[in-house]
């Protein structure tokens, strides 16, 4: 396999499109959540201004090297996840750096940012950061388990670890999607998806009322802006994986936008309806509901 240099500008273009779509999409989701509460909500362009303002702050204190690297690792998790999966199926330009075994790398990247964040927040020395990181890592670890089971089920089902080949196997009508060929795996993965989207049933990590904002308590200015950038890239990168594995992928940008929006809406709908879990409740919830479904998905394949 030879490396084509033209992939680099197209990967950057992908990144640009996803950042802009993410900024607008997260604002739209906040607006939807606000409308549920009877409010107008933020303007749709508010995320751009917040980002610009945070980059424009004049002073930024630091707590050490890992404090710098925390947001960088976090952003690496999001960007890396995005760049190593095929965004648009069948498009040589937007299949990015995908390769034969990229599913394992994707699983790794999903967890990578949280670990980097834990190191950075740990160095800030704030007790709230430590509590937030402890809660976050326990919950993310538990939410990863059903996702890993579902991913293995899918890998066994299609006999491959390449995301491109999994998408290829799902082409030819929506009844070929994993959603219909292996519904148990999709259910387990979607339950895990709720756990990692930082939406209400599982947002105790950030718990703004009891542990002010959790891991990023000490983060400000450009550090926070880096993390905000990741907050718009990472959910979409993760949704791209879900879309490719379970919902037939996208063969062009409009389909991509619609599918990402629809999958994101699942977590928003659940989020505005249900109250918040404590950590031990959410772990129990994953153990009782998501993990057995994941195991069943592997068994019946």
């Amino acid at each position: 396999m030879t490396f084509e240099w033209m992939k680099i500008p197209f990967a950057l273009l992908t990144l640009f499109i996803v950042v802009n779509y993410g900024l607008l999409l997260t604002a739209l989701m906040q607006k939807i959540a606000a409308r549920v509460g009877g409010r107008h909500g933020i303007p749709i362009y508010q995320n751009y201004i917040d980002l610009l303002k945070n980059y424009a702050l004049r002073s930024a204190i630091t707590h050490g090297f890992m404090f710098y690297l925390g947001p960088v690792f976090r952003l690496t998790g999001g960007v890396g996840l995005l760049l190593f999966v095929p965004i648009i199926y069948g498009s040589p330009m937007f299949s990015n750096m995908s390769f034969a075994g990229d599913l394992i790398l994707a699983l790794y990247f999903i967890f990578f940012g949280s670990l980097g964040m834990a190191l950075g927040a740990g160095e800030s020395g704030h007790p709230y950061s430590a509590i937030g990181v402890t809660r976050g890592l326990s919950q993310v670890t538990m939410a990863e388990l059903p996702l890993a089971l579902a991913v293995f089920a899918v890998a066994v089902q299609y006999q491959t670890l390449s995301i491109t080949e999994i998408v290829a196997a799902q082409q030819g009508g929506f009844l070929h999607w994993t959603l219909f060929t292996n519904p148990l795996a999709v259910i387990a993965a979607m339950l895990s998806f709720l756990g990692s989207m930082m939406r209400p049933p599982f947002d105790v990590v950030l718990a703004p009322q009891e542990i002010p904002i959790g891991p990023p308590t000490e983060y400000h200015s450009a550090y926070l802006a880096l993390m905000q950038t990741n907050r718009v890239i990472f959910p979409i990168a993760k949704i791209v994986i879900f879309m490719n594995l379970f919902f037939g992928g996208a063969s062009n940008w409009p389909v991509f936008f619609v599918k990402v929006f629809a999958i994101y809406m699942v977590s928003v709908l659940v989020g505005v309806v249900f109250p918040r879990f404590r950590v031990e409740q959410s772990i129990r919830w994953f153990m009782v509901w998501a993990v057995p479904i994941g195991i069943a998905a592997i068994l019946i394949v």
Partner: protein
Amino acid sequence: MEAFVKPGEKNRLKERPERPAKEELQPRVVTTPDGQEITVEPLKDYYCEAPPKVHPPAYFKIVEDLFNWARAESIWILGFGTGCGAIEMRPLMTPRFDAYRYGIQWRPTPRQANLFVISGYLSVKTLKRAIRSYEQMQNPKYVVGLGSCTINGGMYWDSYNTIKRLDRYLPVDLYITGCMPRPEALLAGFLELKKIIKAGKGEGANRYAENFAWYKANQKQVIHDWDMPDYSW
């Protein structure tokens, strides 16, 4: 009677006798698990001693104007209820007033906030925490005084443990009058603050750094048990 020093004037008031620092803040010798003896000085080890610096605006005016516009349109308030006016802040988040549509958000940590709302009376005890919170915010930062208490002491004019004029202790950008101001007044105040920031006049943090000695003298006049560093970034 509240004592204070005018700008540029020497502190003529009688110096208070220094109180010994609290026990947990005094230097102590600790033996590590491997038998090493180290000295711990909490006030030096846990806090930074560097005084605040003046941060000049961006070199190009057009860049600074863009930044000021962004700062004005994205106001993050430190959620620290300092007085009874904190009650008036809550309705602002609710459907009736909905401050979010103006780009105004509440942040639970001083690091991420750029507007400190002193909501009403400020007791000396709270002033101590308010100063530390203000100093932890990042430049540029703004202070809004809410209600008559922050302007002239209001109904606490005679109180022995409440400060009367906020701008002697922190650089205030804007006062919102009333006792208490209604949420509409707060919204109007925030919109007024946006105009101040857009005009490039929201330089409270630099004022604080320039007149640091004066602010500290005033703060130490009222806070008797000063067991904290002079500046906590």
